[in-house]
């Protein structure tokens, strides 16, 4: 080479500060009709949905807390949260983060942007922050709107927790807020995957769909009978683990693991996207950053992260197998029954009795006792026994349980009719929903929380 590029002194290049780049990206995002529609939808639709459902006779009992939507306004944001974790948040992150870089490829504006900003690094940071801001705006909209809808339509009443204990309205508000905050972690992970897909796949629509596909894969995985260490180490587990906030004491272990795993995924995917973006050749029009190497460089580290987190969780926790064992199921059912029995007692204006006095226990088997009493299935059967003060004979009631692989269960009362066999109870003020007829619960997969 006859001459070497002079590198001793660069041309004075005052780069655009990240704050200005961030504002520029926000302006571009907010100018898009689809983003405006999403913002409107997230801030309005949940309120209308929760208010409308709360006024209907039949409730979405398949969704966690759905059966309590008549009872308290705080059930609405939790139903919305369950729905959002399944559908809304993956799709929102797809539309926002999954298109953040690909849109510049479609519009052919990369060179313009580079000339204007003068720093690919700052472009990346500004884009990542702008997409994060819009996603946060959408998530906050979902939370606030659904809470407002529930509170306006039903009111600020106590919420029945996942183990049947009653949360005061203040506690419920705090837990609902915390649940939405926790769900931000897997949302960030999906957003980072969206950024990575947008950088690695360029104009390909696969980049846009990647967060939704990853979320769908995680949901399918959660439906499979996976070992508990794998289940908890999946980046979407925090979409489920927030349930543990609504037991007493809260099941924080799985939630913390889920949040940490999600944040690790978010950081790794963002870092990969950053590195791939900086390596891109913007002088080549045909190069939109996609290609086998880019995809490989994006996917392999994430597979490595998954393997590492599974290994760490398996090593750090005593849980094995499905995490659903007989003693855990029995304890969960008995605890929830005791709490809900007190509620029924109050409905019937009977003398109050404490959980300690009830000494409720459950005896559960699976498959009529012919199968090992562990693992998910809809063939669990429990007999709950309890004692009342000054009554010698123990009461007993039967429940059929449908336990899903993620530890959640629905207990369906099978009698006696006066206790749990009918969906209504006759109170002095008229018929009321029977809290013991059907109830939701969950089994903590990692280990039992004594309660």
């Amino acid at each position, binding site marked *: 080479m006859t*001459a070497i590029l002079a590198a001793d002194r660069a041309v004075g*290049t005052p780069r*655009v500060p990240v704050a200005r780049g961030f504002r520029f990206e926000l*302006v571009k995002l907010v100018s898009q009709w689809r983003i405006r529609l999403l913002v409107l939808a997230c801030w309005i639709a949940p309120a209308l949905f929760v208010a409308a459902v709360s006024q209907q006779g039949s409730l979405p009992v398949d969704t966690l807390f759905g059966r309590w939507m008549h009872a308290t306004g705080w059930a609405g944001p939790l139903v919305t949260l369950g729905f959002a974790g399944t559908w809304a948040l993956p799709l929102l992150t797809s539309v926002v983060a999954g298109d953040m870089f690909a849109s510049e490829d479609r*519009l052919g504006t990369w*060179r*313009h942007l580079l000339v204007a900003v003068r720093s690919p690094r700052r472009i990346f940071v500004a884009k990542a922050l702008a997409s994060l801001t819009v996603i946060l705006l959408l998530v906050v909209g979902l939370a606030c709107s659904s809470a407002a809808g529930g509170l306006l339509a039903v009111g600020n009443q106590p919420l029945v927790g996942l183990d049947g204990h009653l949360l005061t309205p203040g506690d419920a508000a705090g837990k609902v807020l915390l649940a939405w905050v926790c769900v931000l972690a897997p949302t960030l992970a999906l957003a980072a995957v969206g950024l990575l897909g947008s950088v690695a796949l360029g104009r390909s629509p696969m980049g846009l769909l990647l967060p939704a596909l990853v979320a769908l894969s995680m949901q399918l995985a959660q439906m499979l009978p996976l070992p508990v260490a794998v289940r908890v180490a999946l980046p979407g587990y925090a979409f489920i683990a927030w349930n543990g906030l609504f037991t007493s004491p809260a099941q924080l272990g799985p939630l913390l693991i889920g949040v940490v795993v999600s944040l690790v995924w978010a950081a790794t995917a963002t870092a990969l996207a950053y590195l791939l973006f900086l390596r891109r050749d913007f002088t080549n029009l045909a190069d939109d950053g996609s290609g086998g190497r880019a995809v490989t460089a994006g996917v392999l580290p994430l597979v490595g992260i998954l393997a590492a987190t599974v290994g760490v969780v398996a090593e750090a926790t005593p849980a094995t197998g499905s995490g659903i064992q007989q003693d855990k199921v029995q304890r969960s059912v008995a605890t929830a029954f005791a709490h809900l029995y007190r509620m029924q007692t109050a409905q019937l204006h009977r003398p109050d009795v404490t959980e300690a006095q009830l000494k409720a226990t459950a005896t559960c088997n699976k498959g009529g006792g012919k199968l090992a009493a562990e693992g998910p299935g809809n063939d669990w059967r429990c007999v709950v026994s309890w004692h009342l003060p000054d009554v010698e004979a123990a009461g007993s009631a039967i429940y059929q349980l449908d336990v899903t692989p993620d530890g959640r269960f629905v207990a369906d009362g099978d009698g006696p009719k006066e206790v749990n066999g009918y969906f209504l109870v006759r109170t002095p003020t008229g018929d009321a929903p029977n809290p013991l007829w059907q109830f939701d619960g969950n089994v903590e997969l990692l280990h039992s929380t004594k309660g």
Partner: protein
Amino acid sequence: MDAPLAIRARGITKCFGDVVALDGVDLDVAAGQIHGLVGPNGAGKTTLLGLLLGLAVADGGNLEILGTPVARALAAPDGVAGFVDGPGLYPSLTARQNLAALAALHGSDVATTAIDDALEQVGLTDVAGDRASGFSLGMRQRLGLAAALLTRPRLLVLDEPANGLDPAGKRHVHGVLTRLATDGTSVVLSSHRMDDLEALCSEVTILATGRVVFTGPLAKLAAENRELDYRLRTSDPQAARRLAADTAGIHIDVAGTRDAEVLVVRALVPALDDLVVRLVHAGIAVREIAPVVSPLEAAFLALTEQEARP
């Protein structure tokens, strides 16, 4: 004393894999000069413009922009604006919003009046409130130029700015570029439209297969070049034909035109001058004399074809 150089490039090379896009390119562009860059497709024009805009880094050679060496890091040097492969505009924003967003990005104290002024200069005032998604290619080019004007550049780099322009748009763009050059801004533009380059540029550089085959003033290009074809319309075509046939250095192109009133001759400029003198002395009125293709285009074709020959 020579005018200060806005661009001084020496031995610039740039490769994409096995493809040599630029091969030892030298380029000088003086301050306040409009410099044309021409060459066939794939000659390396866009690559060179990309280097000037900081979109790529040369593999070898020295590049100084506005008096300062360019480092290896990607970044458009300060005072440089422009676009390659079309202006980058956001279709969901209006023309004014595109400019306002860009002005805010630069953090410059660009007032609304400056944006209005830029829009007026390129003739887009009437559509300032329209979304860019509905703009034609020519309108997009003009808006891209307006965006570049907002940064008050000292070096403007434009890739095919005349693409899609109607006559009114062309007039606006030419006016803007001429005014900028008058005010001391250097302009480097590529184009396949030789008439635009001849109208605007004081100097041109012709690239072929990544190498410079000519650089310098247009006049020099015409003077040092070979014979050109000229259309000659006179009051007496027959007599003019006989006279041309007797004039040294003049070759009559028999198949050059179907118009019997027009004679096409091939000649160097001195021989053509001699012919005109003889026509006038013979009492034959010269009504039209013009090159069939422009000197720049002829030179471009000759030089690039020569370069392409093995």
